[in-house]
C-alpha cells in the first residue's frame, strides 16, 4: 500500500532495519502495516484524530527495535551444520586417502594426484560458497535455456568428446576436462523438473505427463547414442522419482517406469550387438564375468584380508592390481581395516540422512524439488559406490561422490552449494505469491 501514514512508515522502517534478511521485509511491512492501519480505522471510528490513532497503533505495537530483533531471530539465513560436518569429514577422508595412496602405494607417476585433489577441493569450496549465497530461484527462469544448452552439448558430443574406455564422455578444454554426460545426468532432471513443475504439481494431466516424458526422451536418446548406459540409468531414475514425488502419483509412475525399463532392456538385449547380452548377464554371475570378474574377485580378496585392523601400509593393494582411483573405500579398508570401514559407512549414512532430513524442512516447493533431485543423485551414486566396495556388484564407471579422486568434486560441491542455498533461505522466503495463487484456485 502506498498511502501509508508517515508515522507508520517510519515505524516499519525502524523495525525492518533490525531484520537483515531483506527478502522478508515486504511481507513484514504488509502484515504489520495492515494490522496498524486496521487498528487506526477502528480508533478513528471511536473518535480519535488520524494522528492520535497512528500514535495509539504504534504504542500498541511496542518498541520497533525489540519487535524487529525478535523477527530477525526467526527469519535469519540458516546454515545446515549437520550436512557441513558430513561434508568436512568426507573431504578430509578423501584427502587422507589420496595422501596415503601417493606416499605409500602409488608409483612415481601418481605424485601429482594429491596436489590436484587439494586444488579440486578448494575450487569446489569456492564455487559452493557462490551457490550458497546466490538466490536459487533465478535458475527457474533459466531452466529452458539450460535444458537446450545441455542437449546441444550432448548432441555434438560424438564429434567433440575425447574417447576413453570406449566411451565418449569428456570434453578436453584448455586447462581442464568437462564430463558432459555426467553434468547432463545431474542437471537435466533439475531443468526438466523446473520447466514442468507448476504443471505436474497442481494437477497432472495426460498432456503434462506426455510433455514430461518427451522432455526426458530427448536426452535419453542422446545418451543412448553415446552408449553411456550408466549416466542414462542415473538420469532416468532421478527423473522418474522426481515425477512421482512432484505429482504424488507414486504407484502409477513406478509401474510405468518399470514397464518401460524392462522393454528397453529387452529390446537392447534382443538386438544383441557388441556383446551386450554377455555383458548384461555377467552382472548376475560375477564369477564368470568375462570383463569384470577379476576386478570383483580381487576386491573381495583385499577386503577379506584386511581384517578388523587392516593390512597397514603394506603393498597388498598394488599387488592385487586394483585401480585405486575408482575404489577409494577399498583402499581405506585395506589399510585401516573393517573397524574404520564401519565408521566410513556411518559417515556416508550420516551425509545422506542429513540431506534427506533437509527435504522436510523446506517449505518452498521449488526449493524442495531441487533438494529432492540432488539428494536422489547423491544417494544413488553413494549407495552404488558402497556396493562396488563389497565386490558383489558389477564394476561400472561411477565414482564415489566427494570422496573419489577427480574433477567431479568441483561439480558435486557446486550442487551441494545449491542445496545449502535452498536451506539457507528456508526461513526467509516469501510465500506470498504462491499462496495467493492457491487461494485463487480454491475460490474458482
Amino acid at each position: 500500500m502506498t498511502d501509508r501514514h508517515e508515522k507508520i512508515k517510519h515505524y516499519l522502517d525502524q523495525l525492518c532495519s533490525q531484520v537483515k534478511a531483506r527478502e522478508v521485509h515486504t511481507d513484514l511491512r504488509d502484515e504489520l502495516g495492515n494490522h496498524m492501519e486496521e487498528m487506526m480505522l477502528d480508533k478513528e471510528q471511536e473518535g480519535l484524530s488520524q494522528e492520535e490513532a497512528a500514535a495509539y497503533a504504534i504504542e500498541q505495537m511496542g518498541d520497533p527495535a525489540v519487535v524487529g530483533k525478535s523477527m530477525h531471530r526467526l527469519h535469519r539465513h540458516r546454515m545446515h551444520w549437520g550436512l557441513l560436518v558430513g561434508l568436512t569429514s568426507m573431504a578430509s577422508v578423501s584427502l587422507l586417502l589420496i595422501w596415503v595412496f601417493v606416499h605409500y602405494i602409488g608409483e612415481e607417476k601418481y605424485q601429482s594426484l594429491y596436489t590436484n585433489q587439494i586444488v579440486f577441493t578448494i575450487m569446489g569450496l569456492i564455487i559452493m560458497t557462490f551457490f550458497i549465497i546466490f538466490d536459487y530461484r533465478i535458475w527457474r527462469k533459466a531452466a529452458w535455456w539450460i535444458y537446450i544448452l545441455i542437449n546441444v552439448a550432448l548432441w555434438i558430443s560424438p564429434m567433440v568428446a575425447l574417447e576413453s574406455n570406449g566411451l565418449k564422455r569428456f570434453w578436453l578444454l584448455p586447462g581442464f576436462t568437462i564430463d558432459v554426460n555426467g553434468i547432463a545426468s545431474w542437471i537435466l532432471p533439475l531443468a526438466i523438473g523446473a520447466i514442468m513443475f507448476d504443471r505436474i504439481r497442481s494437477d497432472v494431466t495426460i498432456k503434462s505427463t506426455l510433455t514430461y516424458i518427451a522432455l526426458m526422451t530427448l536426452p535419453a536418446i542422446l545418451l543412448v547414442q553415446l552408449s553411456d548406459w550408466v549416466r542414462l540409468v542415473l538420469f532416468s531414475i532421478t527423473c522418474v522419482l522426481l515425477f512421482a514425488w512432484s505429482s504424488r502419483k507414486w504407484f502409477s509412475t513406478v509401474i510405468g517406469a518399470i514397464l518401460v525399463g524392462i522393454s528397453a532392456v529387452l529390446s537392447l538385449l534382443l538386438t544383441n550387438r557388441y556383446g551386450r547380452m554377455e555383458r548384461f548377464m555377467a552382472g548376475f554371475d560375477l564369477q564368470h564375468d568375462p570383463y569384470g570378474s577379476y576386478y570383483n574377485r580381487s576386491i573381495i580378496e583385499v577386503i577379506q584380508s584386511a581384517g578388523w585392523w587392516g593390512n597397514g601400509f603394506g603393498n597388498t593393494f598394488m599387488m592385487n592390481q586394483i585401480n585405486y582411483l575408482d575404489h577409494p573405500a577399498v583402499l581405506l579398508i585395506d589399510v585401516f581395516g573393517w573397524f574404520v570401514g564401519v565408521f566410513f559407512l556411518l559417515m556416508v549414512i550420516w551425509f545422506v540422512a542429513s540431506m534427506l532430513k533437509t527435504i522436510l524442512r523446506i517449505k518452498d516447493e521449488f526449493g524442495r524439488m531441487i533438494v529432492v533431485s540432488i539428494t536422489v543423485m547423491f544417494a544413488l551414486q553413494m549407495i552404488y559406490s558402497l556396493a562396488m566396495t563389497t565386490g558383489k556388484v558389477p564394476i561400472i564407471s561411477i565414482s564415489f561422490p566427494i570422496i573419489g579422486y577427480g574433477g567431479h568434486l568441483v561439480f558435486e560441491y557446486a550442487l551441494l552449494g545449491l542445496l545449502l542455498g535452498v536451506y539457507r533461505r528456508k526461513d526467509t522466503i516469501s510465500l506470498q505469491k504462491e499462496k495467493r495463487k492457491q487461494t485463487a484456485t480454491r475460490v474458482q
Partner: protein
Amino acid sequence: MQVNKQMIKGSTETLILTLLKEQPLYGYELIKELHRQSEGVFNLKEGTLYPILHAMELEGWVESYWMEVEGRKRKYYSICDKGVEALQHKKAEWLLFRGAVDRVLGEGGLT
C-alpha cells in the same frame, strides 16, 4: 484487575492455537478475539503476538496464506495437524498445572 505478564506469557501459544482451531484468523482479528473472549483480561501486545505466530509457522504448527479483502492484504493463519497435536499436549499440561495450583491454594482458592 491486571494480570501479571509473566502468567500470560506461558499460555499465549495455547490460547492462540485454540482460537485458530475454530477458524483461520489474521493477526488483528486474533488479538480482538482474544480480548473479547477473555473479557479484557488478555490484552496481548501486538509486538509479542507476531513473533509467536511466525515462530509457530516455522515450527509447522500453523500455516499462513495471503488474501486480499477490501483492498487490504491480510495474512491469515490456520492450524495444521502438528499444531493440533501441540495444542492437545499444551492443554494436558495446563490441566495438570491448574489442578496442582488449585490443590495448593485450597478449594475455591484464596481471596
